[in-house]
């Protein structure tokens, strides 16, 4: 009943084929440490699953023949080879290991960051802490940028936009896709514009493209708050909450970008003369000022 099939490329331990396992096959390494308290049993349970992808396969008598056993082993070794090759090639185009850093968040971080996006006025220390030259994962540092909040708020924005259009009887399913691609195009153009202006001003900064994408995505939180307030309480509430969120995002961006773009002296608040620092200050201000403009532009047609 139980087969011990060892596969090339998988961990070398006897894999027990589970009869009714409904868990998907992934490779046994977990991507992140589990910071929730109860994950140990499930991870242990998951390590003992079967190798081939045919878990839950009906017709047990067919599998008792050695030929099909051989075919199963061959098929799964092919699959694992293909998976290795794809992993290796995909890593060249999309830096997956770098992306993993941006999704290493947990609930406490998300809560604190959302609070910071809406009320950044009391926060004192905006520096990203480092750990031997690499920035600390977002889980351990509130100031580090992440991609979880922007991605989730983008999707939520598309859904809320659909909801808002539905209350105005203007909804159709194609509009959802249209809103999503519209917002995505504006996001891409904003990131490209910021990249271009950073190149032109020759700022030596360690801001990567993904960081800029994360910062540009933080405004969706404010947009969602504004639209939801407008839906529940009417237009004045929309304007008020949008105003509040615009001011909050402006302060947030200014304080975050100040540390990254400006030179050391200017970042500490001392007045440093010189055309270069002035240019950098203008750049920071304009990036931060573009956020409220986008926030209004992308939501005003949703609350009529």
């Amino acid at each position, binding site marked *: 009943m139980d087969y011990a099939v060892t596969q090339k490329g998988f961990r070398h331990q006897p894999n027990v084929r589970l009869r009714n396992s409904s868990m998907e096959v992934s490779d046994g390494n977990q991507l992140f440490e589990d910071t929730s308290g109860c994950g140990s049993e499930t991870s242990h349970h998951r390590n003992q699953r079967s190798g081939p992808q045919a878990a839950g396969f009906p017709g047990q008598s067919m599998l008792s023949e050695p030929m099909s056993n051989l075919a199963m082993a061959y098929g799964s070794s092919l699959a694992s080879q293909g998976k290795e090759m794809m992993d290796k090639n995909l890593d060249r185009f999309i830096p997956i290991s770098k992306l993993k850093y941006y999704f290493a968040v947990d609930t406490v971080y998300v809560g604190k960051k959302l609070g910071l996006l809406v009320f950044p006025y009391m926060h004192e220390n905006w520096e990203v802490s480092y750990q031997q030259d690499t920035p600390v994962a977002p889980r351990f540092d509130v100031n580090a940028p992440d991609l979880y909040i922007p991605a989730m708020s983008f999707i939520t924005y598309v859904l809320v936009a659909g909801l808002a259009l539905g209350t105005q009887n203007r909804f159709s399913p194609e509009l959802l896709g249209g809103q999503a691609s*519209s917002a995505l195009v504006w996001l891409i153009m904003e990131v490209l514009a910021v990249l271009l202006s950073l190149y*032109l*001003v020759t700022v030596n900064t360690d801001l990567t493209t993904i960081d800029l994408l994360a910062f540009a995505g933080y405004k969706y939180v404010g947009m969602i708050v504004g639209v939801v307030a407008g839906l529940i309480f009417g237009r004045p509430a929309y304007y008020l909450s949008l105003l509040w969120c615009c001011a909050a995002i402006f302060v947030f961006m200014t304080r975050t970008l100040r540390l990254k773009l400006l030179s050391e002296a200017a970042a500490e608040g001392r007045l440093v003369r010189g055309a270069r620092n002035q240019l950098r200050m203008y750049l920071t201000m304009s990036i931060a000022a573009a956020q409220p403009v986008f926030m209004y532009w992308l939501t005003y047609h949703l609350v009529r």
Partner: protein
Amino acid sequence: MAFTLYSLIQTAILCTNAIAVLHEERFLSKIGSGVDQGVTGFGDDPGIKSQVLNLIRSVRTIMRVPLIIVNSVSIVLLLLFG
């Protein structure tokens, strides 16, 4: 305001085309991107103008051949599919 990803691609193609067709003699030399000047200022602060000229020159050098391919492909596609 229904932007699509396709319109983004179109914008990118049109902008790179616009940069690629700038005439050296009539225009760029007047602005100051002649062959003999522009690269000599390797001081601490290159300045915005030389950065822009650098960008234009590098875009023209790199994107000439791919632009030919992309333009022909889009012409054929537009002829076939409207």
